[in-house]
């Protein structure tokens, strides 16, 4: 067996060499560029932080909110997306997003299989190209994982896999290219520091489409669907917050003043969001809740993401306060409208991201100017950014879902839903 494995891998190597043109490109990419160890240290750390946001952070945040019969299935969504999209990114996605621009809409295939992505500094930074790639990889993975909250407790596992791959390649990579990879939105001057449009609007409105296409969970509005473990969600919140410093301040791509600005804005908005959601709920229902504080923190973080590096602390405070109230209102609205966005991805990431992109156009004052600082044009650009992202994502997601439905079916059967994802999809139980 050992022997045949080796022949096989050897064969694969040869194939890959042929495919790649220069399989040893990584080892050969010449003398290293001007790497700054401090910047590199920070982006190495930031990449790890974003991993931590995703798994265990997001996985637990979502996991605590579902019923106990679905907890492993929910964790598996995030875990498998992290694995799968990472590989897709390495093989194809990175190149589509960050390869040389082709017509403003997509990257070239030059970095297929990470060919030519090596230890040299990424242009305009002091960090190795490989680290830039892996930092971006983490963003690609978490964006897809965020969506899963909207169809929690009812998606077929095979459908999830297919959906994730298609969405990442067809929606995320182009979008990342448009904004960050040299595409038309970035060229237009759109500001999206760490992914308000690319990550949050995109996942948030994809989530809306998913919730509508998949429909409500069996028993929605009738049976109680209370969270099975809120401390797990609080733990997830803490890890998301922690990791978000890498997400936002890491987006400065160095350990510099920009990172400092982003770090502080991120923290302030998280705190302000937590407080304002809490107060809004307190006023409306008479009690402040732990889940409200946690949700507000995440709302603040999502909303500040696009502007983090461009905002003064007090602007961040204001934006955070608005985020908490607005996203809470969106949750309340959802209940009235009756669609089942199970874990409120739309209300938090969709609404938060959208608000944040616009707020950046108003409040940007550090290294860029928004409307309130004398630059009304920026606000217009931000509107274009938000709206075009939304439209592209909504249409794209709808089409992908229809294709996946046709191919493998989106939903588990009602009996499976009653049994839960854990036993029906994975033959596992979480607790015993």
């Amino acid at each position: 067996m050992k022997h045949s494995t080796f022949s096989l891998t050897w064969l694969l190597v040869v194939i890959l060499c042929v495919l790649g043109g220069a399989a040893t490109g990584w080892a050969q990419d010449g003398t290293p560029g001007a790497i700054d160890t401090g910047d590199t240290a920070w982006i190495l750390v930031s990449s790890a932080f974003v991993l931590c946001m995703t798994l265990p952070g997001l996985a637990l945040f979502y996991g605590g909110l579902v019923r106990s019969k679905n907890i492993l299935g929910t964790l598996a969504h995030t875990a498998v997306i992290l694995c799968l999209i990472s590989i897709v990114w390495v093989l194809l996605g990175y190149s589509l997003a960050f390869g040389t621009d082709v017509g403003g809409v997509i990257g070239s295939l030059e970095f297929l299989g990470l060919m030519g992505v090596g230890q040299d500094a990424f242009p305009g930074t002091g960090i190795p190209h490989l680290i830039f790639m892996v930092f971006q990889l983490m963003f690609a993975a978490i964006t897809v994982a965020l969506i899963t909250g909207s169809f929690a407790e009812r998606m077929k596992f095979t459908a999830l896999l297919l959906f994730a791959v298609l969405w990442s390649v067809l929606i995320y990579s182009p979008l990342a290219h448009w904004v960050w990879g040299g595409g038309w939105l970035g060229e237009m001057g759109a500001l999206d520091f760490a992914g308000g449009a690319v990550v949050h609007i995109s996942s948030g409105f994809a989530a809306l489409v998913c919730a509508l296409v998949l429909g409500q969970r069996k028993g929605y509005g009738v049976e109680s669907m209370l969270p099975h473990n809120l401390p797990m969600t609080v733990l997830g919140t803490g890890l998301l917050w922690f990791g978000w410093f890498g997400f936002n301040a890491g987006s400065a791509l160095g350990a510099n003043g920009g990172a400092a600005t982003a770090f502080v804005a991120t923290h302030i908005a998280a705190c302000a969001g937590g407080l304002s959601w809490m107060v809004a709920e307190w006023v409306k229902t008479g009690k402040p809740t732990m889940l409200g504080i946690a949700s507000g923190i995440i709302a603040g973080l999502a909303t500040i993401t696009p502007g983090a590096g461009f905002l003064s602390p007090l602007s961040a405070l204001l934006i955070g306060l608005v985020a908490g109230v607005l996203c809470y209102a969106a949750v309340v609205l959802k209940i009235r409208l009756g669609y089942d966005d199970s874990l409120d991805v739309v209300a938090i990431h969709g609404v938060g991201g959208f608000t944040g992109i616009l707020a950046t156009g108003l409040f940007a004052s550090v290294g860029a100017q928004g409307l309130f600082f004398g630059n009304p044009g920026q606000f217009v650009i931000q509107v274009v950014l938000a709206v075009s992202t939304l439209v592209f994502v909504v249409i794209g997601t709808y089409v992908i879902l229809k294709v996946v439905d046709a191919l493998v079916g989106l939903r588990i059967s009602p009996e499976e839903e009653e049994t839960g994802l854990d036993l029906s999809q994975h033959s596992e139980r979480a607790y015993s």
Partner: protein
Amino acid sequence: MKLVKAIIKPFKLDEVKDALTEIGIQGMTVTEVKGFGRQKGHKETYRGTEYQIDFVPKVKLELAIADDMEEKVIETLGKAAKTGSIGDGKIFISDLNSVIRIRTGETGDGAL
């Protein structure tokens, strides 16, 4: 008085409770149990091993009722708990000598 025990499917609990409340039942006690019966259990996988789990999650209701409620309770309970598929559960009825309400010391039907 009678003691009615019913083993039912967990997701039927609210429906059964509401149906019983409607016919005037004011109290009951509920326990999470595991049932073994004709309804098949499920398989669980653990790192390469498969386990057959025979026990199925069920809910047990206990109701102390006055004798004249027996029929009505059984009918109502049976209807509300029924899905028609295997594993719907059972109702067991036995005699109860007496009932006391701890708070007041009342006994008999008034204590229910």
